[in-house]
């Protein structure tokens, strides 16, 4: 099985461990991820705040490239890239004049039939209906994570149909359940970490993250699981400062969902590069029971 793969800039740089893990997980499940040739930046939130037309046109080129290569599905692990691409597809499909305007300047024309999947939808498609449970090597016992979805998997600035509940999504919980992990219910699973505000409006972002971390800690979680490279980076790299501000000694490793999946598939910590977190995530995993 072949699916087009859009890594995005973040997965090629600061979060390239997520790229490595994603490829390994899908290879294990028998899926060949084909990186879209010569893909460009999706523009992220910055394009939306700077230039409306480009915010739609930049992802449109990537969609055109994937469609010209004959793919019917793209998987996009980065939440920001996923949101921008799916919104671009829906807006352009509803607006023929815009489609014509964009297509006049790109070589591989945007058609708009391709399906855009986030990593949870792609995993559900590839290993849903209990297939994941059968294909893993180990069950993970003794981990108490909270699942953190962030903004961009469920909330869109345009009409987008989503497969999960908007306010209380369950896809990640269900996936972890099939690895034998008991997840903790909490209030902040779709709250915002501030994203780029961590750099350009630090105080705001730290306050947002403090709320997320204190709820997770108070509910007895020992780690956070997420799918968004921006959320992971923010909660991971700023955690020391936030916890000092709120007077908390505890630290929670922030895992990508692919790291726990990889562990259950029998991959090692080194292989998955989990040792590259700001808050050490290896100790907790070493103590785990893998059955």
């Amino acid at each position, binding site marked *: 099985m072949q699916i087009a793969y859009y890594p995005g*800039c973040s997965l090629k740089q600061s979060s390239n461990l997520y790229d490595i893990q994603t490829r390994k997980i899908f290879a294990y499940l028998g899926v060949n991820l084909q990186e879209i040739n010569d893909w*460009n930046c999706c523009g992220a939130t*910055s394009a939306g705040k700077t230039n409306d*037309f*480009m915010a739609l046109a930049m992802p449109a*080129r990537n969609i055109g490239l994937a469609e010209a290569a004959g793919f019917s599905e793209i998987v996009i692990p980065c939440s920001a890239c996923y949101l921008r691409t799916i919104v671009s597809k829906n807006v352009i499909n509803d607006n023929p004049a815009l489609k014509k305007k964009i297509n006049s300047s790109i070589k591989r024309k945007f058609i708009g039939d391709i399906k855009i999947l986030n990593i949870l939808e792609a995993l559900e498609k590839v290993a849903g209906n209990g297939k994941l449970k059968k294909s893993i090597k180990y069950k993970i016992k003794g981990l108490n994570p909270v699942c953190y979805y962030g903004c961009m998997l*469920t909330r869109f600035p345009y009409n987008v149909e989503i497969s999960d509940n908007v306010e209380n999504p369950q896809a990640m919980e269900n996936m972890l359940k099939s690895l034998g992990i008991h997840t903790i219910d909490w209030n902040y699973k779709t709250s*915002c970490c501030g994203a780029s505000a961590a750099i350009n*409006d630090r105080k705001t972002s730290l306050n947002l993250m403090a709320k997320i971390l204190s709820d997770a800690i108070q509910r007895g979680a020992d780690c956070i699981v997420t799918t968004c490279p921006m959320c992971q980076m923010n909660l991971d790299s700023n955690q020391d400062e936030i916890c000092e501000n709120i007077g908390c000694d505890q630290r929670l490793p922030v895992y990508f969902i692919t790291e726990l999946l990889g562990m259950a598939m029998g991959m090692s910590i080194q292989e998955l590069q989990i040792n590259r977190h700001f808050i050490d995530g290896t100790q907790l995993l070493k103590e785990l029971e893998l059955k």
Partner: protein
Amino acid sequence: MNQSLLMYKPESTKSFLSEVIEKSGQNLTACYQCRRCAAGCSVGDETVFFTPDKLIRMIIMGDKYGALNNELVWKCVSCYTCGTRCPNDIQTGKITETLKKIAKQEKIKPLIPKVKHFHDSFFKSGVRWGRVNEMEFMGFYELKNSLNDFFVKKDTKAIIDEIKEQVKLGFSMLKLKRLHFDFQMSRGRIELRRLSKISNN
């Protein structure tokens, strides 16, 4: 700020409201001030008085200056909670994005210049190379901030603090091999530049 809410300016009302409606694609007049957006706003604790419903009201009342110079517009993190919960499908996140663009077009000084510098640097880096290079765009971002601190605010301490903080983050990223020196580029940048030329704004 309280006072400006009460000022009705008929001569400017229609044009500013229609401009925002047209550019954001949001039907602001459908707002009946139920304040579900205010209850859910991520940055509500930071902006305190200023909530999405107030911003919408202010635009309808024609207070352009107030609508462009408030904390909500510049602190909004585009989490889209307000729009998801709005019973009338008004995405205020799109409205704050539109107002940032209007401020830019009309060369109005942003309330938080760093926000503008960040998004400008990121977007330009993406179009320039086809892909965003974290180190490159952060360099431009810090340069813009430093110039602003130096020439506009005359605040050299702010520059030193900012650089110290970024260097600290840079070092810890380097240790974890999360800083990358290889340059990301896409041939598609030629097409992106062409697209950028035909965009209206």
